[in-house]
């Protein structure tokens, strides 16, 4: 499974064609009949099997990575689900990876502010953990109507249908562990 040219083929074209007629100075053969050959550069890389993140058909994909950068994404011909083909979304998956619309830092918006600020990742994680603990401690319900319920009503979690099984499992486990009952994902909207 070969992949992305190293550089646009305009720069990479190495001319190697030669026709006998040209040696005599003027190439008088009609253009249609001439055959020429131009060697183009094609870049190879490590091939990583993957699965398409879009719909639920689960098309097999081959991601080609070279020097730590993803350089091409195509269908996986061995996958019996798609036999190497993809739909437009799958075929555009490369732009899901290489896209300058992708923010690279953590953004934070203070209450009532009108603009983002960038913040370090660890700061955000610590603050989120504190907020979770603070809300949980303030509004935890141990008993309701005389029944033991152990519910933390203050936290809600949304999301999951686009994420891996491993995340769904440990996230559901963490939420239940914290007593969160408001856990939902796309399955029902």
């Amino acid at each position, binding site marked *: 499974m070969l992949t992305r*040219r190293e550089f646009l083929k305009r720069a990479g074209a190495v001319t190697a064609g030669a026709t006998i007629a040209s040696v005599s100075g003027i190439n008088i053969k009609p*253009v*249609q009949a001439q055959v020429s050959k*131009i060697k183009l550069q094609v870049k190879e890389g490590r091939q990583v099997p993957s699965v398409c993140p879009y719909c639920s058909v689960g098309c097999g994909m081959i991601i080609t990575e070279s020097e730590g950068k993803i350089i*091409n994404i195509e269908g996986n011909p061995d996958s019996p689900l798609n036999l190497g083909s993809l739909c437009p979304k799958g075929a555009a998956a490369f732009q899901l990876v290489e896209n300058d619309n992708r923010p690279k830092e953590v953004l934070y918006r203070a209450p009532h502010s009108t603009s983002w600020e960038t913040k370090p990742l660890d700061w955000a994680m610590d603050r989120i953990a504190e907020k979770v603990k603070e809300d949980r401690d303030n509004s935890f319900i141990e008993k309701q109507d005389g029944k033991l319920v152990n519910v933390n009503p203050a936290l809600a979690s949304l999301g999951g249908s686009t994420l891996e099984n491993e995340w769904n499992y440990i996230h559901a486990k963490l939420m239940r562990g914290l007593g969160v009952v408001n856990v939902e994902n796309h399955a029902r909207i």
Partner: protein
Amino acid sequence: MTQIESKKGMFIDTTLCHGCKACEVACKSWNELPANSAPSLTGNSYDNTGKLDGENWRHVKFIEDISDDRKDSRWLFLSDSCKHCQLAGCMSVCPTNAIIRTEFDTVYIDHDTCIGCKYCITGCPFGVIEIGHLSGTAEKCTLCYDRLQAGQQPACAQACPTDSIEFGEVEDLVTMAKKREQYLQSAGYGKAQIYGDKNILGGLNVFYMLEDKPEKYGLPSDPQMPQKTMVGGYWSSVFSLFAVGLVSLLSFRSYRERKFKEEEETTTGA
């Protein structure tokens, strides 16, 4: 002298195409073609690409063929791109021989030679070529010449979910298409027809199975080489130059006779 090693081509069966545009995106993804920076709705069904040009080397056409009472409603799709013709109009008019016949019998624009004279744009009977904004040279589908050299099939043929775009040796594809045509005609696609066999520009290496006549898809039923009126042009102009030469000489000479007469009258009259 480089020989044609194998005649590669594509057979595009529009009865299997459901207009998903995976081919368009796969082509852009492999060839690193930029997207239209300010796209807008064209209002023509689900086709918002509009036409083939420097950045869109593949364009899926949407043709809504529905009667007013909706009794017979059809939605035809066609994934259009360069046909890699045997008699290539673009190759014939290219003044720098930048458009070459490759060893896979495909038509390829050599971007280091092309001077951007835009002459091949009108040379192509299907309107497939246009100047690429990025490269400043003529651009069109290359049948993934670099992938062919690496022994792969073109990106669009690989991406097509329903194998509507079938890549392979042209002869095998033609036999396959003939078989498919018989099946379709027997299975209720009365007007199914192959478009691009020998009698169209010597045979198109990328040929189609249409569900109706070519005009319905905006394809010329009898495309010609651009040189069809060139000879006429030469003859008419040779004739005209001859006429101009004659006219100017005659008028030149008649002026002289009149001049002599006047001189005689003046000399005799004086």
